[in-house]
């Protein structure tokens, strides 16, 4: 993006025509979503809560106070009583500093971030099968090279508009499009084959595709023999998933499954694009592994335009993962339990480190309930709206000894904190971030930050100093980045700020200054697993309960089922997601008067037959309740959703779907919640009830606080 700045304010944003991904195009958030940077509600002073009110204090006071508290807590309750939520929006440098602070200063591996609730299934799944949980190809290859695009569990046009643009460029070249989704998305309407499956039935569909491919001999036998392990088990595991059987199970016509299988397998170069519709299930890891099986046996991997593309949605969620903001790995995915890795970082950081795997974001509410976790430090995150089961999380937060939030704004989470610190926005700081295709890019300061705000890494650095650790005295973000390059040389040694000034980003691994970066991985079937071969893993599914009996005949299979089913009391299935206009919890985008005009409120998708039965017209209020809570919002009556199914987002605090989702239904491997499936009941509501609800939720979310000398 190219920002035009006048008088210290952003005047206009345009796309950078030289950029290989967007080629100068932007979506509405890029063009118009910047108002929040200069919004009057920006936090401009550190705040400490005293007697239920936030009091403005100076930086020295708050940092001294925090350092004192954290030192005391560490001594009294142990390092593992502290946890940190890093930010998938903050720069690589900020996240590296955060995990270094957590590990080197606080002495724990309790660092995690929202990748836990979004692509942790990818990290586990592809990590298991290919050796690395990352997107295997670069985005421009989709538009330039792929001749078949296979989209599953991704509403690409709404959630990744510029990647959708690549898909459309591919279509203009004659590429074919397969879309698998329970809803009629815009990409589904452009697909050559649109498989409309019931929620949670990804595994049977993918296994059926593999079944057809093996049956019709479309799999790449030489590639499989040379570069994979486990084919025989895989072939046996999909034997029961014939298209006809899966048609009975899912309602998807067998001919469609057969056609899609042939189209995908016969492609010269096929890309699988997937997102939350695959990952956010109690069997999310199994879903990802099933996709990996599909791509590997057809040899659709390790070549330009052929690969597996987990679409990561946040500007730096890839970077946050890569830089070690995860409880089980150091930067560059080096396991914390491995003695050699721990010794390496102990030497680099000059401090003793814990070998114990830390706590995941989704384990935090239970850990607080059990008294194991007493301090939470959050930056650039709003867990009260983005994490599942908001009610439980609010309750848990009340039991913390200390809660610190660093943010640009007083978010719903910040309001419940004991200490709030004001930080820079994205256009106010220098640093790097890494997008979904592993491209490390520079972000440059364009406007001055409000007085009294600071950059995230600086806060960690200052706390570290006060707590007796001198290894974080950086002069600036470039210092931090150079340290990253020294501790993770295989990935980043060749990526320097000066190189990034000339290139349109560099795709890691980039091990030396002359290396051009690595757009696609696993060239010539060389995988990152210890055996250098791709692991094929049997994946089995049964809707009601894990198919353990069938699983016993396989060696380490992955089993999947759906956690919550409809019943007489809760006859609807609630699925959740995003819309193109807003970003996540709306902390930034709902401060844009422009974006707010396009989409000012939540609209819950409801099928016309259900609407008729409930007596609800398009735009009228409905009440949605699950076992966790209820919300009231307007309905969008459309056939894009299936009967007895509804769709809501987490963009609006007034009607956040996470009041309804479950925090207890987690994938045992990745820890990801089953956001995509909750049993719900829907009833007609009224403007009166909606107004009463607004009052209720305002009291809950906005928590009436009196500010002393602050803007609210």
């Amino acid at each position, binding site marked *: 993006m190219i920002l035009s700045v006048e008088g210290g304010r952003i005047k206009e944003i345009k796309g950078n025509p030289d950029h290989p991904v*967007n080629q100068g*195009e*932007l*979506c*509405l958030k890029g*063009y*118009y979503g910047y*108002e929040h940077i200069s919004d009057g509600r920006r936090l401009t002073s550190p705040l400490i809560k005293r007697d239920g009110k936030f009091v403005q204090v100076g930086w020295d006071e708050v940092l001294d106070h925090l350092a004192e508290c954290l030192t005391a807590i560490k001594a009294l309750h142990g390092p593992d009583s502290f946890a940190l939520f890093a930010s998938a929006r903050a720069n690589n440098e900020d996240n590296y500093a955060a995990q270094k602070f957590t590990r080197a200063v606080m002495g724990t591996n309790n660092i995690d971030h929202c990748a836990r609730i979004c692509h942790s299934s990818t990290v586990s799944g592809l990590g298991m099968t290919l050796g690395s949980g990352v997107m295997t190809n670069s985005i421009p290859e989709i538009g330039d090279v792929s001749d078949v695009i296979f989209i599953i569990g991704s509403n690409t*046009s*709404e959630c990744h*508009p*510029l990647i*959708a*643009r690549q898909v*459309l460029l591919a*279509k203009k070249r004659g590429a074919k499009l397969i879309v698998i989704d329970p809803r*009629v998305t*815009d990409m589904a*309407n*452009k697909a050559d084959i649109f498989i409309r499956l019931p929620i949670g039935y990804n595994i049977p569909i993918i296994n059926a595709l593999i079944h057809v491919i093996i049956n019709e001999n479309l799999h790449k036998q030489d590639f499989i023999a040379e570069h994979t392990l486990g084919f025989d088990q895989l072939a046996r595991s999909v034997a029961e998933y014939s298209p006809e059987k899966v048609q009975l199970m899912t309602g998807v016509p067998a001919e469609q499954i057969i056609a899609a299988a042939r189209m995908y397998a016969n492609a010269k170069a096929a890309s699988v694009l997937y997102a939350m519709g695959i990952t956010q299930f109690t069997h999310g890891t199994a879903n990802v592994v099933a996709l990996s099986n599909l791509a590997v046996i057809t040899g659709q991997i390790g070549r330009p335009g052929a690969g597996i593309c987990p679409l990561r949605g946040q500007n730096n969620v890839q970077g946050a993962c890569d830089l070690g903001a995860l409880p089980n790995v150091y930067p560059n995915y080096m396991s914390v339990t491995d003695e050699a890795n721990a010794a390496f970082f102990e030497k680099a950081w000059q401090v003793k480190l814990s070998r114990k795997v830390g706590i995941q974001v989704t384990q935090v509410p239970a850990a607080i309930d059990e008294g194991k976790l007493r301090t939470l430090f959050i930056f650039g995150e709003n867990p009260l709206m983005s994490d599942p089961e908001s009610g439980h999380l609010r309750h848990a937060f009340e039991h913390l000894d200390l809660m610190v939030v660093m943010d640009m704004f007083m978010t719903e989470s910040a309001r419940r904190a004991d200490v709030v610190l004001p930080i820079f926005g994205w256009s106010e700081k220098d640093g790097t971030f890494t997008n979904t295709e592993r491209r490390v890019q520079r972000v440059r300061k364009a406007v001055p930050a409000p007085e009294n705000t600071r950059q995230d890494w600086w806060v960690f650095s200052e706390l570290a100093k006060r707590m007796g650790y001198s290894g974080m005295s950086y002069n600036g973000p470039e210092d931090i980045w150079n340290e990253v390059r020294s501790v993770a040389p295989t990935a980043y040694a060749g990526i320097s700020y000066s190189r990034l000034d000339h290139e349109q980003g560099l795709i890691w691994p980039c091990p030396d200054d002359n290396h051009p970066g690595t757009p696609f991985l696993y060239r010539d079937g060389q995988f990152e697993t210890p055996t250098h071969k791709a692991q094929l893993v049997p994946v089995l599914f049964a809707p009601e309960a894990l198919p353990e009996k069938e699983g016993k005949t396989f060696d380490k299979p992955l089993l999947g089922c759906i956690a919550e089913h409809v019943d007489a009391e809760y006859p609807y299935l609630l699925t959740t997601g995003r819309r*193109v*206009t807003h970003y996540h919890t709306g902390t930034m985008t709902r401060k844009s*008067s*422009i974006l*707010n*005009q*396009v*989409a000012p409120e939540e609209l819950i998708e409801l099928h016309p037959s259900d609407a008729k039965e409930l007596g609800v017209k398009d735009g009228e209020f409905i009440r949605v309740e699950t076992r966790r809570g209820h919300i009231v919002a307007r309905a969008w009556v*459309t*056939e*894009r959703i299936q009967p007895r199914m509804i769709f809501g987002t987490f963009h609006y605090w007034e009607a956040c779907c996470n009041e309804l989702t479950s925090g207890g239904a987690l994938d045992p491997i990745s820890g990801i919640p089953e956001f995509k499936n909750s049993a719900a009941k829907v009833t007609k509501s009224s403007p009166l009830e909606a107004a009463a609800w607004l009052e209720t939720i305002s009291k809950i979310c906005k928590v009436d606080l009196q500010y002393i000398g602050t803007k609210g």
Partner: protein
Amino acid sequence: MNRFIITEPSSCIGCHTCEIACTLAHPIVDGSTQMLSPANFKPRLKLLKTQNITSTVQCRHCEDAPCVNVCPTNALIYSEDTVQLLDELCIGCKTCVIACPFGAMNMEVKPIKRSVINGLSANSTQVTAHKCDLCVDREKGPACMEVCPTKAIHLVASDSSDDMLRQMHKQTIFKQLTGAAR
């Protein structure tokens, strides 16, 4: 032939960026476009998402425009190969809204200053017709086309429509020759 813009549904991803660009290109309040509110967010093209189609509806700048034909005050005229609305002449009778077969004409509330007494003026509102003006006063042309990330919005003018027709002729001949089904 009159020019007009049209959206190609096969490329439209329903992102609303065009609607915003249109609104910002036609500032209503004192030339200022910041702080949009329901009062001044008035795109002249409307994005619709039906079950299977996502596309926009906007003025076709018809050759024998029903709106021009019915307007009692001649507020709608042909100009610069487009159909333009002269705001000042519009009496808000809404006949054009009914006449337009595309639903491309809307009525919008505009803030104005009404002369009240002795040269004093009061803030008031006026309802006038409102439609795509093809950004004739904008240097770079239609704002919507410029921002569309998938370039789904096309400007159809007589030269470009010749190209389009030629393409369609070729496709027709090909289909007739090969009997190829779509």
